[in-house]
């Protein structure tokens, strides 16, 4: 097996290489958990300190758009699963087709998010000197909006990186770099994409639903 082009010199065999890549990716995801975890902890504390403001803030978010986006993102995870599956079967066409679907859905998510952001700007709900919206002001709304922008912004940033990675995979797939034995990069990026999905699964109720 060691004559296989995809085996790096310092590994014994492809299985060792695959497991290393898998473990490495999972460890990276742990760091991502902790990275978002810092904001989650901060959110928990600030929500505890400003219950009224946070629940008032939630009311300014659009549950319909949030729900649609959740569905879109979960859909993109499904197509990602299919891409990984195609990778295991050595089906390069299947990989690129499913990855393109994933990119498409990811794009839809970002566009919807963009519309939401525009609304918030329009309504004066962006924290900072411009913060002035119509309606009743409860202390803590601005703080809530800080969290909204930080959390969804970080999440969107991760999606953009993810989309970049997906494009790179499509190029590799077109070049015929993936075989039945070797599709580690697809698997790795897949894990990353699902992780971003999981983050959203938590953000959605925390920002849009709780006490709205």
């Amino acid at each position: 097996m060691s004559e296989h082009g995809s085996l790096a010199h310092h590994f014994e065999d492809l299985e060792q290489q695959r497991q290393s890549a898998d473990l490495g990716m999972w460890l990276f995801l742990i760091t991502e958990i902790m990275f978002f975890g810092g904001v989650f902890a901060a959110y928990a504390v600030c929500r505890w300190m400003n219950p009224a403001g946070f629940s008032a803030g939630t009311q300014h978010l659009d549950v319909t758009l949030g729900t649609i986006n959740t569905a879109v993102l979960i859909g993109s995870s499904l197509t990602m699963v299919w891409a990984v599956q195609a990778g295991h079967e050595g089906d390069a066409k299947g990989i690129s087709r499913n990855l393109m679907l994933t990119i498409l859905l990811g794009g839809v998510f970002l566009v919807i998010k963009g519309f939401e952001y525009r609304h918030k700007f329009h309504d004066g709900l962006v924290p900072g000197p411009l913060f002035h919206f119509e309606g009743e002001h409860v202390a803590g709304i601005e703080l809530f909006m800080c969290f909204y922008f930080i959390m969804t912004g970080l999440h969107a940033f991760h999606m953009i990186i993810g989309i970049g990675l997906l494009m790179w995979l499509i190029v590799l797939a077109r070049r015929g770099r993936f075989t039945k034995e070797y599709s580690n990069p697809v698997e790795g990026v897949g894990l990353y994409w699902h992780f971003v999905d999981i983050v959203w699964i938590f953000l959605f109720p925390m920002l849009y639903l709780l006490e709205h």
Partner: protein
Amino acid sequence: MSDNIPFFPDQASAAASKVDALYAFLVAVTIVFSVLIFALIFYFAVRYRRSRMGERAKTVKSSLKLEIAWSVVPLVLSLTMFAWGADLYFEMRKLPREALDISVIGKQWMWNLTHIEEGNKELNALHVPLGRKVRLTMISEDVIHSFYIPAFRVKADVLPGRYTQLWFEPSKAGEYHLFCAEYCGTKHSEMIGKVVVMTPVDYERWLSGGGTNEPLDVAGERLFEQLGCASCHGAEGNQRGPRLAGLFEKKVQLADGRVVVADENYLRQSILQPKAAVVAGFEPLMPTYEGQVSEEQIVQLISYLKSLGEKEAN
């Protein structure tokens, strides 16, 4: 400043000697273990040097008993330290009921102190009577500072936006350091002052020497009128806002179901962010006074609100 032991701080509060006793215990444990380990290493290093032992070490079997012993002994000792330290800490944190109240406002880079009852103001200095408990309620106008009196072994951070409290009972007359112990910018090291502990007689003389001062609750009462608080919180009680007399340290039922204690921080929040905690049974009508009152004025208002309760009780 230390008059007996060199390189040791004065013991000028009731707590100081207790802290020092615990410290002495810790020092003793440290010396015992350091000396033990130093001595063992030294002895082994000399006794088992290669020129004496030859090229090979002797076989030594591992020993579970030993491992347990040197885990349990430190564990027991450290739990002792913990228990002693925690006990004393709670004693030092538990605020006394009756005390001389001082308000502290820290800002870059000075300490403003006010004797709440008499209204005497001080800058970077605090005069207190011997043997009487003193309670400080502290807030910062900018960054975090820390109020530290080494001779009393007390310290507490002073935060923006929230009151913290500290108390001590001076036990020795004299002049002591007051330091800002939390890094707060360029002149952090100059945010210092002195604490002067005087006999009660001297203290009374010092108080009256400060000219005529307006007690804080009187100033607060005037503010209460000026700011129009009275229009909603009139003495009669059948007003738009809740009755405030006797409110301090009572439990308050809020509209969102929480029950909170009306301490200084709650009163402060009620003035600055009234909508964050709405009293059950009232409409959220009260406007915010954020930006209209200084920290000093808030302290005055709070003193007034507290005094309302005391007058009620009398």
